[in-house]
């Protein structure tokens, strides 16, 4: 649907976030975030819990100040401006209504404090515009209007405690928009509501956004909500924006395996580009619409479950043979798991198949999304301890006998994802950490381990399934640790 408010002026930038870094103690929450938001847009910050999305919103609201970087709202640098002086208002997840005030009192709170330009008085000396407060009658009118907007006419006298969760959130929204902010910040505002109420409120929020023309910045971990409501989505992970784009871009052209996995169900596999437009995965060759990769380059491949077609095993169009291992009815479609040699594909199909059916699968070339592998090697700063040991991330590892470096030399330590082993007994390994993410890549899992003492992530590929939160020890064989001389200016490329 086209937006109503496409006015003659080109959409200007209303929020500009520049190189924002936020640390709490030693932990980095936001790592060099840049984001610019256009006036009138509905922008969603989407990501799993702990990705930094709420922190980013709180920085825009002014409840926290960044460790480094700057925030501009409407062209003004507000980085150090306290929240009560910023032209933004916030809707909190747990409503945060004032319990001692009734609905009217809550909504009128901001209006009673506001100072507006007084046109009845002449401008003062040095061009200062005189200000006044809202009159009682004006406040009453505005509050009633806001109540109507959120569908709560006649609720002004009610005690906020007597309202349902949905009604309380409506009051919270009315309380924020009645101040006519330039930007409305919403921190998982529907998180505490039940599913039906959430769906209703989604539609109402979208209508409000359209009618008010205010910029919305919306935080959620619910990808469906983000896809439904937003003009733009910023997918975040570990304090970094992974991708910024329209819902369609994010869904159809995910920039990396994380985005693909987080946005909707997907099959994520590892494959190899044979040449432009041809690649290999799951033991078969496919044509695709991607080019520009190196010959033989390892890539990540994403295929959405609804883009795989299941056919009888003898169908000549079939590309991948497999066996149905599970079928679940999901209301409007069936979710079918098809096992092919090493990988289990998730397929959504309107036709049902039986478990044990031998089938073949077909995938259209433009539904195969090829992405550069983000990283295949860990690289850390280290110091040589002796002829057979190196120290990095605060731990000492044995290395193969070498004569290139002397004790005290600064080096870059490189360890391939495939060469890392995890153990259940952290005390047996030089370095220990906590599993923070696992991603099934077909045939293996890519696991991310957070090393708290060093505030760094260790990535590895393994056949063993680990759970988030597992405490693990990190083992690397001496011969798998590669050392490179570290020079100050050159950054070691992957």
């Amino acid at each position: 649907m086209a937006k109503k408010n496409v006015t003659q002026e080109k959409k200007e930038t209303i929020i500009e976030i520049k190189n924002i870094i936020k640390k709490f103690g030693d932990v980095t929450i936001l790592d060099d975030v840049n984001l610019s938001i256009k006036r009138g847009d509905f922008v969603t910050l989407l990501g799993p819990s702990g990705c930094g999305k709420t922190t980013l919103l709180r920085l825009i609201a002014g409840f926290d100040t960044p460790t480094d970087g700057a925030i501009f709202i409407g062209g003004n640098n507000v980085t150090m401006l306290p929240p009560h002086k910023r032209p933004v208002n916030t809707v909190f997840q747990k409503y945060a209504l004032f319990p001692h005030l009734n609905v009217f009192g809550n909504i009128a709170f901001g209006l009673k404090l506001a100072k507006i330009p007084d046109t009845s008085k002449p401008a003062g000396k040095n061009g200062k515009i005189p200000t006044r407060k809202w009159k009682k009658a004006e406040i009453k009118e505005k509050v009633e209007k806001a109540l109507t907007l959120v569908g709560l006419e006649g609720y002004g006298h009610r005690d906020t405690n007597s309202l349902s969760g949905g009604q309380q959130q409506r009051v919270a929204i009315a309380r924020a928009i009645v101040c006519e902010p330039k930007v409305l910040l919403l921190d998982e505002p529907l998180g505490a509501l039940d599913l039906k109420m959430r769906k209703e409120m989604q539609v109402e929020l979208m209508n409000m956004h359209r009618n008010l023309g205010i910029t919305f910045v919306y935080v959620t971990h619910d990808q469906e909500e983000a896809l439904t409501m937003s003009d733009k989505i910023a997918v975040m992970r570990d304090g970094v924006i992974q991708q910024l784009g329209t819902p369609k871009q994010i869904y159809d052209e995910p920039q990396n395996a994380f985005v693909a996995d987080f946005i909707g169900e997907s099959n994520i596999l590892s494959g190899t580009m044979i040449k432009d437009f041809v690649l290999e995965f799951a033991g078969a060759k496919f044509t695709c619409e991607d080019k520009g990769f190196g010959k033989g380059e390892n890539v990540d491949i994403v295929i959405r479950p609804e883009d795989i077609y299941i056919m009888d095993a003898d169908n000549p169009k079939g590309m991948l043979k497999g066996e149905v291992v599970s079928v679940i009815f999901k209301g409007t479609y069936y979710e079918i798991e098809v096992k092919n040699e090493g990988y289990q594909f998730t397929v959504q199909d309107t036709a049902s198949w039986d478990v044990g059916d031998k089938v073949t699968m077909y995938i259209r070339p433009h539904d195969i999304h090829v992405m550069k592998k983000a990283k295949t090697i860990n690289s850390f700063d280290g110091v040589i301890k002796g002829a057979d040991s190196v120290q990095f991330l605060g731990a000492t590892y044995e290395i193969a006998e070498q004569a290139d470096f002397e004790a005290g030399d600064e080096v870059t330590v490189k360890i391939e994802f495939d060469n890392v082993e995890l153990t259940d007994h952290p005390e047996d390994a030089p370095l220990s950490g906590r599993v923070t993410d696992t991603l099934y890549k077909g045939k293996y899992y890519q696991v991310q381990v957070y090393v708290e003492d060093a505030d760094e992530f260790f990535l590895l590929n393994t056949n063993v399934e680990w759970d988030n939160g597992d405490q693990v020890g990190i083992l690397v064989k001496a011969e798998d640790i590669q050392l490179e001389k570290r020079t100050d200016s050159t950054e070691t490329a992957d």
Partner: protein
Amino acid sequence: MTKRTETTKKIIARSIVIGMLILLYFPLMLLIVFSFTPSVAMGSWSGFSFSLYRDLFNNSRAMEAVRTTFLVAAISSAIAVILGTFTAIGIFNMKKNKQELSLAGTQITVINAEIVTGIAFATLFVAMMNINIPIRFGYVTLVIAHVMFITPFVILAVMPRLYRLNPNLYEAGLDLGAGPMKTMFTVVMPQLIPGMISGFALAFTISLDDFVVSSFNTGHLNTISTWLYNSRQGIPPESRALSALIFALAFIALVVLYIKNKKSQKAFRG
């Protein structure tokens, strides 16, 4: 479990509660009954009369002591509520480890023997006099000492309200354009009022029946407790009338609080 053992259990539980209440109230009832007889010796009945009450109101020393006690309790509790509330807010906003340490630190007069607190303040006031700070034992010293030893109780009463506060409430106030001070008074404070009221009630009663701290810091003034203690001829019979009146006041306060609680619970359920 059979139905019978269930009922036996209930009966036992009930009789324990009723027994408890009788134990609590019987001496008080006895006191009230004996406040209506003029006999000087305690526990002997010499006919019904209001004479003890008349004597009480005619006893200028007694009335003076009553006035002093209530005045000191009212002033020091009012100061303690203000001081205690702000201290609680301050402690609440500290970092976790400092918060626990500070909270424990403020509770020293709760845990410490009252006699130590009393002597400590007396020592302080004497030391002040010795370096010519114009202070005399009387109202001022009494109020200062009382404030210091009842404030921790206010902190204890306000703290739980702070912990139950929605952490976004303060931010919501800022967000809507109120400065930090304004938000503190118009958003946070109103949420603490129930805690402040119970803190005041607690502080008031503790100040009211304090003897130990008062006796060291009162000078020539008499509070009810020091008046009773200083009476040469044992406990004066009018004290029975006074005690009965104070009990009546406390009982009324209890009933009022109970009814108010009931009402607010009803309102909350909507």
